[in-house]
């Protein structure tokens, strides 16, 4: 039914996809290494996954959402049994009586870019080229689907041991967030999650489009620049349509824990064009705000991508260390995540910076 649209994902796409997803993760979203290995193993066992553009399926097709939920450090230690997300998806299908026609990533940034691909490979479904964030955010109500009025908060969680919990009714997105988190802790702080089925017509209007392909292209550009010994950072700027906002060396990283989330700052000493300047990045799970000499230059929901200067390797906030030389690239957020409505949920105020009102990053778009 999907006809000739889209393309079949190849094993060779997985490395660029995971690398590009880590770049779009803006410091959060977890390490895609484990997810990439899992996707590779499933493909080697014969699974085939087609990536479909958002116009491929009819309006009344049902779209499923799956993803891992939990602390990134858990994900690298207690690796999944493998079918957690599939079990959560089946539970949603069972209580709604709906069969999914395709899956979509809730979050393209980081490890969760791989989750729908793995589950789609197991279920024999295609994956839509898009996601609910266009980057990584820490909480489920920050998905565009939630922001743009998805009314059902129906959710399912499954753990490695075969426990499956369906949350049939939830009062509001914050309650959903809290209930899912506390059940996830019971499940060992890592679980597979699935959300309510979404009608394709709604997904077409509210998903950030083409982000799977975008991630593959960003990752491929990095790998290509490395192989040809070209300037990796320039290639990433080109591919993201963003701009370079700072290069420098990390001189201090301060972290503290508030309400279950890491908060902190990374301080940078400028290099090259920014020699003598001072940079500061506010980090939660993601990079949230970049200041240069005290002036905010890029702020959430615009993307602040922190890459190792020479290799272009994205650096997650957990991996930030003194002495790293980094390039900080800003990429404008998709209009769907910087509308008035979206800013109430994912703007700087929502992340605890009441003194900042969202100002879109100023830049010269790279020439087409």
């Amino acid at each position, binding site marked *: 039914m999907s006809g000739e649209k889209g393309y079949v994902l190849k094993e060779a796409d997985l490395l660029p996809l995971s690398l590009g997803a880590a770049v779009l993760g803006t410091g959060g979203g977890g390490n895609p290494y484990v997810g990439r290995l899992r996707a590779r193993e499933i493909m080697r066992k014969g699974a085939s996954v087609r990536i479909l553009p958002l116009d491929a399926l009819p309006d009344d097709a049902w779209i499923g959402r799956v993803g891992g939920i939990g602390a990134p450090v858990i994900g690298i230690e207690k690796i999944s049994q493998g079918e957690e997300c599939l079990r959560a998806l089946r539970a949603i299908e069972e209580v709604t009586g709906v069969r999914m026609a395709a899956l979509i990533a809730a979050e393209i940034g980081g490890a969760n870019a791989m989750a729908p691909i793995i589950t789609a490979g197991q279920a024999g479904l295609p994956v839509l080229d898009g996601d609910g964030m266009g980057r990584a955010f820490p909480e489920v109500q920050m998905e565009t689907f939630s922001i743009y009025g998805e009314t059902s908060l129906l959710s399912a969680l499954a753990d490695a041991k075969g426990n499956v919990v369906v949350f049939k009714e939830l009062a509001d997105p914050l309650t959903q967030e809290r209930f899912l988190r506390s059940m996830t802790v019971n499940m060992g702080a890592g679980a597979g999650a699935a959300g309510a089925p979404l009608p394709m017509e709604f997904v077409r209007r509210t998903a950030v489009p083409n982000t799977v392909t975008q991630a593959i292209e960003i990752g491929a550009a990095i790998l290509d620049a490395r192989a040809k010994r070209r300037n990796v950072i320039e290639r990433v700027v080109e591919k993201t349509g963003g701009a370079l906002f700072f290069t420098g060396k990390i001189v201090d990283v301060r*972290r503290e824990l508030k309400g279950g*989330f890491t908060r902190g700052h990374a301080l940078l000493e400028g*290099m090259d064009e920014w020699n003598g300047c001072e940079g500061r990045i506010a980090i939660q799970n993601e990079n949230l705000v970049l200041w240069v000499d005290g002036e905010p230059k890029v702020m959430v929901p615009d993307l602040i991508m922190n890459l190792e200067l020479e290799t272009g390797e994205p650096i997650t906030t957990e991996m930030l260390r003194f002495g790293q030389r980094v390039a900080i690239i800003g990429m404008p957020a998709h209009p769907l995540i910087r509308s008035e409505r979206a800013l109430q949920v994912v703007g700087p105020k929502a992340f605890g910076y009441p003194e900042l009102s969202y100002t879109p990053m100023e830049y010269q778009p790279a020439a087409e």
Partner: protein
Amino acid sequence: MLRIGIDVGGTNTDAVVMDGERVKAGVKVPTTGDVMSGVVEALRSVLKASGVEPAAVDVVMIGTTHFTNAVVERRNLAPTAAVRLALPATACLPPMVDWPDDLKQAIGNHVYMAKGGNEFDGRPISELDEEELKRIARDIAGKGIRSVAVTSVFSPVSAEVEKRAAAVLSAELPDAHMTLSSDIGRLGLLERENAAIMNACLRDLSRHVVQAFRDAIAEAGIKGRFYLTQNDGTLMEDSFAERFPVLTFASGPTNSMRGAAFLSGLTEAIVVDIGGTTADLGSLKKGFPRQASMVVKVGGVRTNFRMPDVFSMGLGGGSRVVGSGKDIRIGPASVGYRITEEALIFGGSTLTASDIAVAAGKADFGDRSKVAHLAPDLVEAAQRKILEMLDDAIDHARISPEPVPVIVVGGGSILVGDAIGDVPVVKPDHFAVANAVGAAIAQISGEVERVYSLSDISREEALEDARKKAQDAAVAAGASAKSIEIVDMEDVPLAYLPGNATRVRVKAVGELNVG
């Protein structure tokens, strides 16, 4: 205190005798295929050069690349069973899933997954099933395998499951070595398991090699204690090293950087260690090598050891020189240890970087008349190219824009004069044997990694508890209690978890307690 430091490299075995802080003598002899005779020769010749009586030596420290090379070259590796305790968790990615095929084949790809493992907070994922483990043990016995690696989820937080499983397996496999992942690595299941499996497959080799070292020391008439150096520049006792050969990985670069810091008296610098085939560059921070923050691969396998952040380039004393003028190329091909047969100065027919150094009058060894015919243009172009390559590499290794000095050590240091570009070069005394000096001055460490729940105790109490445990571990390993310093302390809050769980890692080091 009289100590001997030895560094067994792929090409040369270096040795120094140190009296307290002073280097009394240093020698370089060829590494031999059987390891032992090279070490015997190094010991004999360094004792002679220093005039020290063997019986007066308090302690011998050995750094070796033997185990790294065995993995890289896939030789002398024992068939190994990888037993993981985690089911039903982790089933989708079995042990060795991301290993290069040739290495997996070299140790047999014997993979077992069983019930067991812990959640982050200590609850069991599933209870150990002794019958299941006995079945696995019988299968291992049937295959004649004697090396076993046991890995359980969250074992760095609680090692109990691995210990219990190893006891069950050992009862059925009385002749097998057990490597427990909790004894080796940090959080990160696949990387820690990889290290445990590599350790297990090196256990037969390590028994042989450590015994060879022991015999060599005894044969030299030395009665003092004997240690091997680890990847972080600290020491482990011979019996411990025999059980944990994997901990010697990357000890070579660490030793040469620590030795360079010691010999030069500099604590902030870039170290360039030029050997026969490669030059390794790294940065010193407070006298210790800067650690790599990313995952480090050994022989194509991901590990999460603390390793020095070293940048390697194919330039050494044995590097081949081809072409001329602007198109001149130096390395990465090298004649390696065959330099004493193949280089022009030794009567061979291959033009090497060492020939250039001798022709330019920067070094004087071999037969200088054999390079007298080289065109001055060629010598000039090759020298310029060598400096360009080093200048570029030094720029890569910089961790700050401030000008820091460059320390050049290693046998290939003869390629370099007083400066590289406009950076002055420090060549300390005994530069050629800096790695052996680094081994001789190595310290004793203790490390602890735990997850604390801060709902029960304060962060300060958690850090204090971890500090205490790390100090105790260092003392237990042989450090003098009053010299102990905390060199690394890191607490990473576990994001997304309510209840404020935090992961704390502390490392303490101290001087070796000789008494």
